[in-house]
């Protein structure tokens, strides 16, 4: 089959590889009908994610038709149309039972690698480095799905692939980011990053009852899309973000701040340049400029919710400010399985049509070009979907 492979930072290729096979009883094989490139894939593309190996198949946002099921999987049938959550979870360990699906104990065969860095390992992820299991991803014609009796969600034929594909990651991710803000009526939420995750965080914040959402980015088309989701916008290259947020909230600060940017933040302030130089000299792992700003901006006693991915040891992290203001920090990979049924219901109900983020529709062969386009934010690119 054809698959999108990582061949080094900045080097993505479409190549022929062996078809996936059932390896375990609870597995299924899915013929991929739609898959997407995520902002998280860009961290891999830019070489920020350790333990990638040449030839790894990328992609963790995918859906398709079940073409084979393992002997121990009585829930799925050949022919089922499913969306696959990007976190791989067994459903039976302590963490799965607690609803902390992205922290599953039993799905990462390389848990020891993650333990060296974090003490304990999170769940396995599709197409996201060997530290997260080394599972081949879904930017391919077929994909093997472990624990397929518990992860994939069947979707009704009345909804198109484009409407349901983002249940695989970014809709639940934006939703959990907003849910982590413990929104109460009257609240103002500031969202850094108007990429796909930010867009879903904005809309989810309103779904959860926020009064105002202030969205921060610098790309006009992304800010415009945020505005279409009823956000007030703020271009960080034009104003001082902290001042502006203070002004707009009567000197109080937003009740909660969402960092939907992650470790590759851009910035115009001194600390952002410092991050850039340090990471380029291999002296730091992340560029946490947005996280610093979110902590600085948040009102006293507020929450900073971090769906943006961080990888290592953060430099100049203002824990003192977070402490002084008694902030709550919430973060992590999305507990995908927790959100699938209710968010599918919201789509069916017409509360939201997730296809609004799509700007590019391509085939597998175009994937390497689209990694570049999406990374550079060229051609007003916001979200790429691939139909193999």
């Amino acid at each position, binding site marked *: 089959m054809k698959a999108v492979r990582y061949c080094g*930072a900045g080097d993505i290729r479409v190549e022929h590889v062996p078809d996936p096979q059932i390896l375990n009883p609870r597995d299924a094989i899915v013929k991929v009908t739609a898959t997407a490139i995520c902002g998280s894939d860009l961290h891999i593309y830019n070489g920020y994610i350790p333990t990638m190996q040449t030839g790894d198949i990328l992609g963790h946002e995918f859906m398709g038709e079940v073409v084979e099921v393992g002997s*121990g999987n009585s829930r799925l049938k050949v022919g089922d149309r499913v969306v696959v959550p990007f976190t791989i979870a067994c459903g*039976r360990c302590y963490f799965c039972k607690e609803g902390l699906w992205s922290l599953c104990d039993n799905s990462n065969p390389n848990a020891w690698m993650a333990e060296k860095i974090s003490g304990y390992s999170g769940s396995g992820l599709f197409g996201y480095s060997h530290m997260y299991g080394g599972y081949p991803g879904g930017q391919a014609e077929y994909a093997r799905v472990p624990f397929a009796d518990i992860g994939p969600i069947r979707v009704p034929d009345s909804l198109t692939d484009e409407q349901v594909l983002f249940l695989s990651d970014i809709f639940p991710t934006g939703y959990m980011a907003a849910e982590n803000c413990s929104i109460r009526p009257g609240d103002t939420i500031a969202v850094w990053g108007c990429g796909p995750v930010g867009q879903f965080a904005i809309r989810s914040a309103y779904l959860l009852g926020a009064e105002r959402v202030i969205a921060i980015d610098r790309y006009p088309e992304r800010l415009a899309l945020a505005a279409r989701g009823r956000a007030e916008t703020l271009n960080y290259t034009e104003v001082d973000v902290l001042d502006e947020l203070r002004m707009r909230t009567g000197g109080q600060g937003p009740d909660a701040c969402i960092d939907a940017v992650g470790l590759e933040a851009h910035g115009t302030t001194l600390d952002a340049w410092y991050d850039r130089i340090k990471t380029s000299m291999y002296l730091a*792992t992340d560029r946490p400029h947005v996280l610093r700003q979110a902590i600085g901006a948040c009102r006293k006693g507020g929450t900073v919710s971090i769906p943006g991915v961080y990888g290592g*040891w953060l430099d100049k992290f203002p824990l003192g400010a977070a402490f002084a203001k008694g902030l709550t920090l919430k973060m992590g990979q999305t507990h995908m399985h927790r959100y699938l049924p209710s968010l599918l219901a919201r789509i069916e109900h017409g509360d939201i049509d997730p296809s609004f983020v799509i700007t590019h529709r391509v085939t597998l062969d175009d994937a390497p070009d689209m990694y570049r386009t999406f990374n550079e934010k060229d051609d007003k690119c916001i979200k790429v979907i691939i139909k193999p």
Partner: protein
Amino acid sequence: MLQFNFMTTHALRHDMPSSIASTESWLALGSATLLLLYGAMRRSPAGALGAIAATPLLYRGITGRWPGFLAGVMPEDTKTALSGERGVRVHESIRLELPVNDVYRFWRRIENLPRFMSHLESVAENPDGRSHWVAVGPGDYRIEWDAEIFNEVENQTIAWRSLPGSDVVSAGSVNFDAVRSGQSTQVSVNLQYAPPAGRAGDLVARLFGRAPTQIVREDLRRLKQLLEAGEVAHARPADDPR
């Protein structure tokens, strides 16, 4: 050694885009753990096998890892072999979300052990309570030995030791504790073995990154996967070169 390796790689890469941070940027943090991790990951599977093959004592370690050590009840030769400088001790524990009875019963059928102890090929229990163990390493390096269970309390403990004349001298115990109001079971493994080359051999094994503790930890992790999830997690087919 690893650090030097890194410096070289870094120097060679100065002409690459600055965005190529990757593993190197992690390394630059200078964390010894990361250096080790990096080393482990860069090592090709062939290299890793070579390293392991070069240290058969590691396999002694592995094979000596079966549970069953309780001080004081060992026969004289086991006691001598495992005493002082000569013994290697491993202690590991893991919690499973299953009642203690399920975990105990699975482990007590020692034929099950090769299902999660990756280097064991087979274990067979004879009617007289003695058992025969076979372990195979890379290059068909194979060892066999006999052992006996010398202490056993249902749903609490199993202890065993190698029989006199065995290739591998070892003893160990596994304890099962019901925790969290009986919803979960904590499994604790204690074992001791004498690698033929003594402690020095063990040091070599450690240098290659896979200390006996790590091997036991991986085995226990597989036990947990098998019993909780019903299967051992695999990302790729066994014949995948990576």
